[in-house]
C-alpha cells in the first residue's frame, strides 16, 4: 500500500449526511475483478443523470475547480452501508487520499486505511470550518500532515486531529497488515492447538 505522510491538495465539499457506499459506488460496478478503474464511477448516482448518463454539472466533482480534488470534506456518518472495499478503491482511483468528516462507518474506516486513505474525524464545529474552507474552490488548498496530526485549512487555520496509533504507523510506512500478522504465526498456531483440544468439532 502507498504511504501517507503529508498532502497538500484541493478539498471538495460534500455536505451529504449518511453518504452510503451504494452512492459512492453502486452495485452494478462491482462486477470488476481488479482494484483499479472504478474512479470514473465514483459517486455515479450523484455525478451522472440516471436516464441520460450525462454529467450533472451541479455535482461538486464535475465543477472545474474540483476535478482534481484529493481531499473530501464530507457530512456525518460517511461510508455507511455495504462493506464493499470498492468504495475506497473508487475514491483512490479518482485520486482522493483523505476524507474528513465527523464520523465514519466502521467497515469503511477499516477498508480505507488498508488502502492508504487517511480518514480524519473532527468535531461538528471543525467540520463546518473545513467545509467553508473547501467551498473556496481550486485556489484554496488544504494541507493534511499525518506525522504532526494537523490539518491546515485554506485560510491558514490549523486543526489538530486524533488518529489510531497503529493505523498511523501503518499509513506512514505503507505497511501490509498480513505481513505484520504473519510475524505472530507461533501465537496463531498455539491458539489453534488449544482450540482444537477444547472444541474439536471446529476442526472436523
Amino acid at each position: 500500500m502507498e504511504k501517507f505522510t503529508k498532502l497538500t491538495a484541493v478539498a471538495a465539499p460534500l455536505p451529504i449526511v449518511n453518504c452510503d457506499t451504494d452512492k459512492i459506488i453502486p452495485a452494478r460496478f462491482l462486477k470488476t475483478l481488479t482494484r483499479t478503474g472504478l474512479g470514473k464511477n465514483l459517486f455515479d448516482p450523484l455525478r451522472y443523470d440516471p436516464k441520460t448518463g450525462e454529467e450533472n454539472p451541479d455535482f461538486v466533482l464535475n465543477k472545474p475547480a474540483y476535478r482534481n480534488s484529493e481531499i473530501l470534506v464530507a457530512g456525518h456518518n460517511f461510508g455507511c452501508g455495504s462493506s464493499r472495499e470498492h468504495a475506497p478503491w473508487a475514491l483512490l482511483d479518482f485520486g482522493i487520499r483523505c476524507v474528513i468528516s465527523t464520523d465514519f462507518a466502521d467497515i469503511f474506516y477499516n477498508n480505507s486505511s488498508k488502502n492508504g486513505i487517511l480518514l480524519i474525524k473532527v468535531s461538528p464545529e471543525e467540520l463546518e470550518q473545513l467545509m467553508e474552507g473547501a467551498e473556496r474552490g481550486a485556489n484554496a488548498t488544504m494541507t493534511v500532515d499525518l506525522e504532526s496530526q494537523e490539518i491546515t485549512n485554506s485560510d491558514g487555520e490549523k486543526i489538530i486531529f486524533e488518529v489510531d496509533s497503529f493505523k498511523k504507523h501503518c499509513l506512514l510506512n505503507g505497511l501490509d497488515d498480513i505481513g505484520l500478522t504473519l510475524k505472530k504465526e507461533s501465537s496463531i498456531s498455539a491458539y489453534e492447538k488449544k482450540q482444537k483440544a477444547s472444541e474439536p468439532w471446529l476442526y472436523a
Partner: protein
Amino acid sequence: MSGPKTLFDKIWESHLVDQQDDGTCLVYIDRQLIHEITSAQAFDGLRESGRKARRPEANLCVPDHNVPTTPGRGGTDEIEDDASRIQLEVLEANAAEFGLPYISINDERQGIVHVIGPEQGFTQPGVTLVCGDSHTATHGAFGALAFGVGTSEVEHVLATQTLIQRPAKNMRITVTGSLPEGCTAKDLVLAIIGKIGTAGGTGHVIEYAGPAIEELSMEGRMTVCNMTIEAGARAGLVAPDEKTFEYLKGRPQCPKGAQWEMAVEQWRKLPTDVGATYDTEIQLDVSEIVPQVTWGTSPEDEIGITGVVPDPAQVSDANRRSAMERSLEYMDLKPGMKMTDIAVDKVFIGSCTNSRIEDMRAAAAVAKGHKVADSVYAMVVPGSGLVKMQAEEEGLDKIFEEAGFHWREPGCSMCLAMNGDMLQPGERSASTSNRNFEGRQGPGGRTHLVSPMMAAAAAIAGHLADVRDLIK
C-alpha cells in the same frame, strides 16, 4: 478480565490471539463465508505474495449476488452477462486453486451466503464468523460473533485465520411486549433503527434481549440481527437457547454424537452473566407498534403504515432537515401524503433479510386467494435452493403463482441492482430487503422497505397497504 461478562465479552476474549499495548487485538476467526463480489482481489493478493489459505476447510464459497434468478436458469456457463459469468468462474477457479469448499449455482444448497451458512450448520454459537458482506451480522442470531469485512480483510483471514481489531463497546437492546397481529421481526427491527438511527450503533456490538426476542423463531432472530448494520453497529447478537440448538441439531456441518453434547454444554455457558454491564442500554416495547414502512432513502426513515410522509419543516436539526428534504425529492413524495396512497410498480420478496421459509409462509398466507394488481410486477425469490424446495413441498409456489407472483431461483436478486433484477429510473418498489438507499435497486429507483406480509399486501393493493386490513 474477571467478573460478570456479556455474551460479546466471552466470545471476544476466547478468541484473542494477541494484544498490543495500544489495545490493538489479533482475533482468531473460526469461519469465513465467501461470495463472488468481494473475493477476487483477495485471492489475487494471495497469489501475488505466494501465500496459501491457512485453513481451507474453515471457509465456504458460494455465488449469490451476481446470479440470475430466472426460472430454469442453467449452470454458470449459461449466464449471458459476460462480466457476471466471469465473476462466477473466477470464484470457482479460486476455490479450486486454494482448496476451499464451493457450492455451485446448480447445487440445491446454493443460496444467499447468510441463508446457507445457518442451513448448513456452518454458523454455530460462540464462533467468530466473517464474510466480505455487511449483512454478516445475520449469523449473530445464533450467538456467533459475526461481522462484515472488506476484501483486504478477506485476504487477511484466508492467509492468517485472524483479523486485527479493536474491541467494540457493548450495547443491549431489550425488547419487551408481544408483537401485535400483522407485525413481524422486520417491523421490530425497523422500529429499533427508527429509534436509534443509522449511526446509533457505531462502535458497538448490539445484543438483542428481552421477551420479544426470545419469542422470535430463529428466522425472526436472523431478520433482526441482519439489519444491525443498518443501525451502524459492528455486529448483532442473540444469546443461544434451546431454539438455537433445536435449529442446528443434525445440520451437515454441526458436530454429531458425543461432540454435539460437548458443544451444547459449552454453548450453554455463552449467555451474558447476571450483573454484567453494558456501555449503552436501550429499551423498546413493541406491543403498540403498527406495521412499519420506510418513506425515505435511509433505513431510519421509517414510519407506521397508518402515518403520513413527515414534513422536514417540522424538524429543528439542520442536518436532519436537509437529509429529509433530499430524500423526499429523490422519492418524489410530498409531506403529509398518506403512506397508503403511495402506488408501487414492483414488489420484491426476498434477500438475506426475508427469504427464509417462514417469510415465504407469511407472504403466501397473505397472498392466498388474492390477485396481484395489474399495475404491479411482483417477484418472490427464495433465499436458497433448500428454502425453495421446502416451499414447493408446502405448495407455496402454487399459491404465489395463482395470485400472479413470479416464483424464481435463489439469489440476492433485486436487493441490489447487479444481476438483472432491478428497478428502472423512477420506478417504485415495496421490498423486503434491507436498504432503501438511492439507486440501491437500480439507478433512479425508489425503495420502500417492508415485511414479507406487507410486501404481499402492497402487491395486491397496487400501493403501500396495511396488511391488517387483508388478514382481518
